[in-house]
Every structure is written in C-alpha cells, then in structure tokens.
C-alpha cells in the first residue's frame, strides 16, 4: 500500500474516477491487497522458468543472473508459482 500512486482521499478523486492519462494502467499497483508473498530460495532454483510461465499476473521476471523474482507492485500473493515450482524453491510467507 505504501508505494501506490493516486489520490489519497475521496475528495481528490476525479468525477466518476475518469482516468485522463492514456496508457497509465500500469501505474495502478494491483498487488496492494496481497496478504502473502513468494520467496525464492535460489539454492534450490534450477532456472526452469515455470514460475514465470504460470504467474497469472505476469509479474515474475528473470534477473540478469538467470534467477527469478516477482514484481511486488503487481504480485497478488496467489501462490501459483510456489505450487508449480517442482524443485520447491518457492515458499509462501505471510505479509507483515
């Protein structure tokens, strides 16, 4: 919730919540309601990319070193990556 952009109070909303900036959907951080998050253990990761393939939000990205991580602006904490990860390199932990 901390890094989101947009109006802070109801008074600052545009009438009818019209968005006047085209192509700005990415600025809405849809991961704000997440209650759990995935954590990668790169010692177990074999860089197969199955987490990247299965993430329904498309928020898992490959780093330059070949390992994966999720963009927390959009990760909703669904746990599908951890479920699909057969080397069990991903665990799901509670958000604090």
């Amino acid at each position, binding site marked *: 919730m901390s890094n989101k952009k947009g109006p802070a109070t109801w008074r600052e909303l545009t*009438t*009818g*919540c*019209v*968005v006047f900036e085209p192509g700005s*959907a990415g600025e809405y951080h*849809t991961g*704000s*309601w997440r209650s759990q998050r995935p954590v990668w253990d790169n010692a177990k990761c074999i860089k197969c990319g199955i987490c990247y393939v299965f993430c329904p939000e498309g928020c898992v990205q490959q780093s330059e070193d070949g390992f994966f991580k999720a963009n927390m602006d959009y990760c909703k904490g669904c746990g599908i990556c951890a479920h699909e990860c057969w080397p069990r390199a991903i665990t799901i932990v509670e958000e604090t």
Partner: protein
Amino acid sequence: MAKRVGMEVAVAVAEAVGQCDIDVAAVYPITPQSHIAEHLSDLVADGKIDAEFVTVESEHSAISAVIGASGTGARVYTATSSQGLMLMHELLPIASAMRLPIVMGIANRAVSGPLNILNDHSDIMPQRDCGWISFFVENGQEAIDLSIQAFKIAEHKDVLLPVCINIDGFQLTHMVEPLEFPDQELVNKFLPPRIPYATLHPAKPVTMGAFAMSDYFTEIMKAKDEAIKNSKKVILEVWDEWAKIFGRSYKPVEIYKAEDAEILMLTMGSMGETAEMAVDELRAKGIRVGLIKLRLWRPFPFEEIKSVLQKAKRLIVTDRAVSFGGPGGPVFSEVKSALYAETQRPAVYNYIIGLGGRDVTVHDFVGMFERVLADTANKAVDTYEFWGVRE
C-alpha cells in the same frame, strides 16, 4: 404561450423528452411503458427531433447503450418498467459510479411473480441503493415537468448523476389528462446543451469505468454518496428556476392541509390525489387530518420530513411495495429512521396498499384514517398491515 392539450401521459412524457434536444434514446418496449418507446421512436422516424433511436434487444442493452452514448457526451434518455428495470439492475450502480447524467422514465409496475403488469412500486424499491436520484410524480403535468427538469439536474456540474422519474403505470401512463407543454423557446433557455465533464473521443483518450481494488473502493463509494446528498441543493435551485419561468413550483415534500393536522397520511406517486379527497371528506366532518406527499425519494429529504412531522401526533405511511421479512414497507422504514433521534415524534402506522394494481379508493383512505383514530391505545403503532387483505 404554453400549449394546453389533452394527451395520454406516456405519449406526453415522450413529447416532453422530445423538447429536450436529446441525442440518443434507447428504449425497449414493456407494458405499461411502451407508449413512451413508441412515441419517441415516432418523433425520431418522422424527423421531428434530431436524435438516434437505438432499437435494442433488451433493457440490459437499452441501459448499456445509453451509458456508452452518455460517455461520448450525448444527452440520453431511456425508459422502462418492472421486469425491464430488474434486467437493468446490474448496470444502474455502474451508471451512477461513472457519474453519467442519464435520464430514465419508469412506468412503475408490479414485479413478477405472479406475472401481473399492473401498478405498484415493487420495481423501483429494489433499485433504491443504486445511486440514482429518484422522483415520484403525482399526475401527468408533473411527469412532463420532471422529465424536462431531470436533464438539467442530472447534467449540473455539481451533480452528474443519473435521474429516474417514477410514473405510476396505467394509473398515470395510460390516462388522458389536460396538460400544459412549456414553450420550446423557454425550454431551450432553461436547458442549454450538455457540457460533459469528460468524453470518449479518439482524439483525447480517457478511461471511464476503470478497475479499483479495496485500496480505492471505499473512497469511491464515499464520493458517490456525497454527490447524491449534495444534489438536493441543485434540485431545489432548479425547482426555483422552474417556478420562475413556468409558474409551477415543486418541493421535495408536498403538504396538503397538514399544518394543524393531528393525523397525517404519507403517500408517494399518483395516490396523493385520491388521498386528498379523503382528507377533504374528513375535514368536512371536523376531523383534523392532513396529507404529506413525498416527491423526492433519493436523496431522501430528511430535514423536510422532520420539519413537517414535528407537530403531528400520528402518522400513517402508505407503501406500495413489501420488504419481505423486514420492518415494514420501504417508505415506512425510511421515515421511521428519519424520526428516530427526534424527542418529539409521531406514532407511525404502516399500511401496505395498492399491490399489483389493486384499487385504493377514497373510502379506503378514509378507512385508514378512521382505523388509526380508533386506535387510542396505540396498539397498531410501529407495525405494518396489508390493507384490505382477505383473511
């Protein structure tokens, strides 16, 4: 000079909407609203008004079409009734959340089942919390006037909300009444072209109806609630302006012989005129009764209702819909909650009347007054009764 004619009210509503320089109408016919759809369609087909009439395949599509058209900046109208309104239901809160100034006529009709088609208010009551400004009219003249005023209220920059006008099906829509149509020139002056807050146009793309999660949803609902509450100020201003130009005045709550009344009756819609006759009949016998007619249903006129009920000892609220398993009719619950914090408040009685087109005569209204007069021990207070039900 304003034109005085005898005309069927549904046709007259379409005529009045035709005076409002609408751009798009999408209306699916349904009894008893169909004559609005038919006559508007005639006006467009005959070239009498410069508008698009979209022949949709359902009421769901009718409301969807006017939502889209309103988003482009068009002045739009739709109308429906009963099952049609129920089919529109899921779109109604979207129209108000998007703050689109849509105007809708509702020819009120009982909701199935059983299939009925005749008049009561069970179609509008489930739409109560959809964020639409909601008026009830008592006669054909009010139906015309409110249909024109609705555009001005809806499109006002401080309102920008959809408005519905409740017109009792058959009892109003199918009556031929003497009506006064306002001069077109005066309507043009009263109702200038719509200035939209935002429009859907390829040259300047915007997003309407975007997604919002729990981080914004509460704020958006709060904004909508403030908007409809604040709309009352504009409604009152528009009614003042109307009175100055056209000579007919409107209030959120109308009263009839209520000032010194010991027992008040509250009605909504066309039954007010019948209830007036019952008041006259009892007044002639020296019994001090009076009438309150609720014109503005949403936003609910709490202040006006409280001030008119201050001195009354007893109040009869009539409802033309049932809130099954609830505290009484929907109007009754509303009025009672308005009075809850008042130290001086009348004993409130509730009669469910006129369901599915059942006649409620002057004799019935006299009977309700007499029943309450006889209840000296306040036995029937705070509860509801189906008036005239066969036991």
